[in-house]
């Protein structure tokens, strides 16, 4: 293991992918990279993402796109991979936490598509708060278990030694996905351990990740923090979403409809709603922090025995359990106005979804409102436009 305070710039012509982990400040980082795109391009650093983050493209690349999504992401992924692989920029990069879903042969496939000399950058966070964030994220995928029940299952699904005890098809258990030991063991042989950079967050400096990425790209301080954009739900609202999911599930509701309405159409309104709520941070109970530390310590040991580069102090990935309450009260009530706003979010998103359903759209258009002259004028206007274009 090589430990650095800040990394050296990657050699000219280098490429790197940032594979998350999720909930490690990736949204803020991707926002900063997107906002500084012109400055970065001028300095020779090329971002292949369109916009902030192309999540579905990352999921396609990692082999983790759920069946119910439809779209042209496969084609976009091929184009992105070609652009990444053939870029002649001084430094080319792609940030997508979805890539951390990749495992086994899919990692080799990524190397074939992107280049085996690609560097792998992983941003990290102590596991205890990371699990809390992940639980919230899981609620936005129709999760129904309480934080503690969910944590029990997560710990049961993967042992401290890294053995996965459950069967899974597409999405590996969270503690397997987050395992630094797994990342080193699976990504290292394909890309080379010496090309893996693990970034431990600074306990105080929230902009530290920005500085690390500037150093990797070999540019000055051009990245500016942007608003987070995906703030965490306060605990009462998170619990309300969980009960909402459970009610939907108990009703026999299907997953694709839920994902379309709440996961997609309500995503931005839900984010805006979150930004207006009264903060009520969710804290894991002490036993979760203690168990998470056991995993973090085991993973750190695997990292120490490897040839990866660690930016920062691995010890910062272990939390002090004394800072975590032995028992955390789960809220059972929510502010009426806040509940009303969530209803508004659900109402508006469901309305949009319903309006898109084929049976909702009247098939017959009423053209009787337009006179012959108006129709002819419109056709003429289109004909002129076509001629002008030609």
């Amino acid at each position, binding site marked *: 293991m090589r430990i650095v305070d800040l990394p050296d710039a990657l050699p000219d012509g280098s490429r790197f992918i940032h594979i998350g982990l999720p909930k490690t400040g990736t949204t803020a980082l991707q926002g900063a990279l997107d906002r500084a795109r012109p400055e970065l391009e001028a300095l020779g650093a090329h971002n292949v993402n369109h916009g902030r983050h192309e999540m579905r493209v990352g999921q396609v690349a990692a082999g983790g796109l759920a069946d119910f999504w439809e779209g042209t992401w496969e084609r976009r992924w091929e184009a992105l991979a070609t652009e990444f692989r053939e870029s002649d920029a001084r430094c080319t990069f792609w940030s997508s936490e979805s890539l951390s879903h990749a495992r086994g042969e899919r990692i080799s496939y990524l190397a074939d598509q992107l280049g085996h000399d690609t560097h792998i950058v992983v941003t990290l966070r102590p596991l205890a708060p990371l699990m809390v964030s992940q639980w919230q994220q899981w609620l936005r995928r129709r999760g129904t278990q309480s934080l503690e029940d969910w944590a029990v299952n997560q710990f049961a699904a993967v042992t401290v030694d890294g053995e996965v005890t459950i069967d899974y098809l597409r999405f590996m258990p969270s503690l397997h996905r987050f395992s630094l030991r797994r990342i080193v063991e699976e990504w290292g042989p394909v890309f080379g351990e010496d090309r893996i950079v693990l970034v431990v967050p600074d306990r105080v400096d929230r902009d530290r990740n920005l500085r690390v990425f500037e150093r990797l790209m070999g540019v000055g301080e051009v990245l500016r923090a942007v608003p987070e954009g995906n703030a965490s739900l306060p605990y009462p609202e998170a619990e309300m979403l969980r009960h909402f999911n459970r009610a939907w599930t108990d009703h026999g509701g299907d997953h694709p409809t839920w994902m379309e309405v709440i996961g997609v159409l309500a995503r931005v309104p839900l984010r805006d709603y979150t930004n207006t709520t009264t903060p009520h941070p969710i804290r894991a109970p002490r036993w979760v922090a203690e168990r998470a530390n056991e995993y973090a310590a085991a993973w750190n040991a695997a990292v120490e025995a490897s040839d990866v580069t660690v930016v920062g102090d691995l010890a910062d990935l272990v939390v002090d359990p004394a800072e975590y309450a032995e028992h955390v009260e789960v809220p059972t009530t929510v502010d009426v106005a806040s509940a009303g706003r*969530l209803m508004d979010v659900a*109402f508006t998103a469901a309305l949009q979804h319903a*309006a898109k359903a084929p049976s909702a759209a009247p098939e017959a258009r009423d053209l009787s409102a337009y006179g012959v002259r108006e129709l002819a004028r419109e*056709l003429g206007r289109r004909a002129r436009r076509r001629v002008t274009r030609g």
Partner: protein
Amino acid sequence: MSVLRVPDAVAGMNTFAVPTWWASLEDERVSRDDDELPDVTLVEVADLPADRTLLVVGAVAELLSEPTPAGLAAWVAEVRAAHTASAPVHLAVSLDEVTSLDQLLTLAAGRRWPRFDVASAAAHTDADPVPPQSVPGGQGTARAYADAIVAQVEVLLPPAWQTAVDGAADATACISRALDTDPDLGPAEARAMRDACRTALEQLEADGVTLSGPRDALLWPVPAERGLVPIDVAADAAIEVMLGQVERPVDLAPDRALVVPVEELPARALLTRLRGSR
């Protein structure tokens, strides 16, 4: 051809089903057979897959003789008494009084009433805000919900907006009926009663009774306390808001022509119209 059995008004259910109402319909599909099935009106329905017994119910408070487990059990017993293998009960929740055979058959098909044009409703934008809704009772808690749901803008109401208004009214009504602003029961009793209602519905469904419409209306309302509402109650209301929209499109035949801006119409449609005008 299947037969819809509609028992006469009983225990707060089928309150519309009185002889004068049936007589006013003057519809040949409606009949009685007091020898075979006393106190039941029969309606022949072409697209009903099998015979059914229809019980149209409103909010739970209107159904129970008293807000106690015993009152709930008595109502459940009434439902079970009507439930037979040859004509299982379909419990259709409707918060609107049944006034027409069309409405009755819509409810019997598991659909919602009134019809709701989601396409028009979705077309309303922030620039065209929905006017504020009146909340039954007007109490502070429900009002807080209403204020949170709809924009407080006074506007004239073009007819095209009516469906959007209906939708917002739906959302408002969901929480209005979940929160008891004039409670007969204390918070703990109301919660227990709500849980008992939920269990009773699950048991009825397990017995083969089908349920349609805003089923949250069959859960006993609870009082809000100091501006806070139980989370599961809020979730029940939110899910009903969502289902109220998601379940509607399949219910709707287009009952209104859609006027599309001319510049958005495909050229073929314009040409077809021009040919037809000659």
